[in-house]
């Protein structure tokens, strides 16, 4: 592989593109040529670098100098100073106050910010995601090599069991056990499926992994295929993720050319193929059995479970389904060992968790931190406090069906077991932080609107329950609710939980339940006093048709 003196990365998330990242990229290219140094410098557009403060960012390695926001007229000076003369163009550096997340971590060696701990996002934003050689240089395919050249499938599974890794899609099922179930299932043909149908509102961690480090998912799936005895894998990626799909397509081609995918991997007897399958816009397809239906070409309606996909999955064959973030942990665990992995996070939930921080905080975006950090720490350190000095009112964890956490619970450690004890679901890792201007009735209405739209309609409790809950909340927000409506809401929430066929319906009543538990007085004010304490609801007094 060709060696470069410097590596230049230009951020290419949607906001950077809107602010002219493409033009900046092209201008850098031109200037490198005019200085005659284009052979010495590698120049790449990277995906999303995690945070959205001083975009577009231009990051130059090995110095890890972060410049931003960079306009085309800054480029000539930047190239001349940093790349031609070798001096940091300090006046163009992004203000360290505006940087956070991974990007700030690069600077934090000076001790200004607590370091994140990155396992699954280890390479995202650091390497060219289209270049397999860069992946290999950064520990890529070491784990697959180790597995194929010296481990038995059962040893691989034991290592994952020992690591204590739990699924990162939301439910937290022990990953190693799932692998074992599939490995033990009867049948000659088995499948590995990567669930990349990330549709949970507020969640985009999988997108960043796929866009920033696509090879890690291919490597992990190949290891999984070896361990459970599958020769074919599917990645089901949500239809809206066009860039992630392109990156995966290119990665599959490159991995095949290098012999990391396809027939006789590492010249062994093991062969593995990966197919890409795009969704077409349906939240429910993130539910694993709906996802399987969708791959088979049907409506994404969940199956009844049991039997579970581990024995009766894709085309009724034993199938291993893992979330993107779960898979991204696999190569590191194999490489560094289960003892290393267990040393991070909490004893019952080892490893890290990627959170997306959203809402009324100063800095929104994505962090990867050890399991067990508290909500208060996340808001204060990574969110840099509430926006405009407002007060924290509540947070919703894990997307639309997640729990509503009042201020009194913000010191609960965020790991699977502590959250279970507090009656809270960790879910997908979305953290929606709301200030006092948020009305709980209005928020619940938005959430129930989501579920009435996204319910697949297969079973009645979910199809009718979510619609009815939305209508009731709508009336309350117009000031024409009655106190008996609250009993109805509680009943609907219970019925959804107990009677729905799949996880979507079972959890969709969670926000209603939590709001009535923690914020009942505020909801009752809408009914008894015909007042929205936050001043959000229109309280028009007449029915607005849903």
């Amino acid at each position: 592989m060709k060696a470069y003196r410097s590596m230049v990365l230009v951020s290419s998330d949607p906001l950077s593109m809107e602010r002219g990242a493409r033009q900046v990229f092209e201008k850098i290219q031109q200037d490198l040529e005019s200085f005659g140094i284009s052979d010495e410098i590698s120049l790449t557009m990277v995906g999303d670098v995690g945070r959205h403060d001083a975009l577009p960012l231009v990051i130059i390695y090995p110095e890890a100098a972060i410049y931003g926001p960079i306009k085309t007229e800054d480029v000539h000076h930047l190239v001349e100073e940093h790349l031609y003369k070798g001096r940091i163009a300090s006046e163009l550096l992004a203000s360290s106050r505006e940087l956070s997340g991974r990007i700030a971590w690069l600077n934090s060696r000076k001790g200004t910010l607590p370091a994140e701990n990155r396992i699954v996002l280890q390479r995202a934003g650091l390497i060219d995601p289209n270049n397999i050689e860069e992946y290999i240089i950064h520990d890529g395919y070491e784990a697959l090599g180790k597995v194929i050249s010296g481990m038995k499938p059962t040893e691989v599974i034991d290592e994952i069991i020992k690591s204590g890794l739990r699924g990162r899609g939301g439910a937290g099922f022990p990953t190693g056990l799932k692998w074992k179930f599939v490995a033990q299932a009867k049948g000659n043909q088995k499948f590995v499926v990567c669930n990349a149908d990330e549709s949970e509102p507020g969640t985009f961690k999988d997108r960043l992994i796929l866009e920033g480090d696509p090879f890690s998912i291919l490597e992990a799936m190949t290891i999984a295929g070896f361990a459970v005895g599958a020769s074919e894998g599917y990645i089901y990626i949500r239809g809206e993720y066009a860039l992630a799909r392109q990156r995966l397509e290119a990665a599959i081609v490159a991995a095949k050319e290098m012999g990391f995918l396809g027939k006789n991997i590492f010249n062994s007897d093991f062969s593995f193929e990966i197919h890409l399958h795009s969704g077409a816009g349906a939240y429910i397809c993130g539910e694993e059995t709906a996802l399987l239906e969708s791959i088979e070409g049907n409506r994404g309606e969940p199956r009844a479970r049991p039997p579970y996909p581990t024995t009766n999955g894709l085309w009724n064959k034993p199938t291993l389904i893992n979330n993107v973030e779960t898979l991204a942990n696999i190569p590191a665990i194999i490489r560094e060992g289960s003892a290393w992995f267990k040393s991070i996070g909490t004893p019952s939930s080892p490893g890290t968790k990627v959170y997306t921080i959203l809402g009324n905080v100063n800095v929104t975006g994505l962090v990867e931190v050890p399991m067990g950090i508290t909500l208060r720490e996340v808001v204060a350190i990574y969110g840099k406090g509430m926006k405009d000095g407002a007060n924290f009112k509540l947070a919703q964890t894990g997307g639309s069906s997640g729990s509503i956490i009042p201020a009194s619970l913000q010191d609960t450690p965020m790991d699977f077991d502590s959250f279970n004890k507090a009656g809270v679901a960790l879910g997908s890792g979305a953290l929606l932080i709301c200030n006092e201007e948020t009305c709980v009735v209005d928020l619940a209405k938005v959430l129930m609107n989501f579920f009435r739209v996204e319910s697949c309609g297969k079973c009645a409790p979910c199809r009718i329950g979510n619609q009815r809950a939305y209508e009731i909340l709508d009336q309350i927000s117009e000031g024409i609710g009655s106190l008996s409506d609250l009993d109805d809401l509680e009943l609907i929430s219970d019925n959804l939980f107990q009677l729905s066929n799949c996880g979507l319906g079972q959890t969709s009543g969670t926000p209603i339940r939590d709001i009535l538990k923690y914020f009942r007085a505020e909801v009752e004010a809408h009914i008894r006093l015909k007042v929205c304490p936050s001043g959000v609801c229109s309280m028009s007094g007449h029915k607005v048709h849903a």
Partner: protein
Amino acid sequence: MVQNTKQSDVANSVIVAVKAAVDAFGAKREEMIPILNEINKKLGYIPPEALDEVSMLLKAPKSQLYSVASFYRMLSTKPRGRHVIQFCESAPCHVVGGKEVWEELQKQVHLKSGETSPDGKWTLLTTSCLGVCGVGPVMTVDEDIYGNIAPGELQSILARYE
């Protein structure tokens, strides 16, 4: 006569689009969603004639095709405008000012959710989370994504489209 030629042109373009999609993915039942997606991209929606054609090539009943085409948000069985605006109505965009942007957007294009303008320029849709929540409120126009939108910026964004 002119009318007939036009109609057969339309029918031809449907047949061409269907054939290209089926050739690209193979005439297999499990490729139904990618095939319909491709047709939708080419024609802007999936007309009934396209369902007939796919049904024949895939040897799948039309009812099944329709059940799939009507299930997924990215597939449409109704004609859409030249430009499709999708506005995210999920909670993360809502709590950072999405409601005000949505109200202004409806005024700007004189449409409510699900409607297409009489001149066929815009279709306005609300959508569930698009996965770019870090920069909410978010909307897409065709393939372009816009984040951190303030109500005052809508006019200049919409003016970019003919």
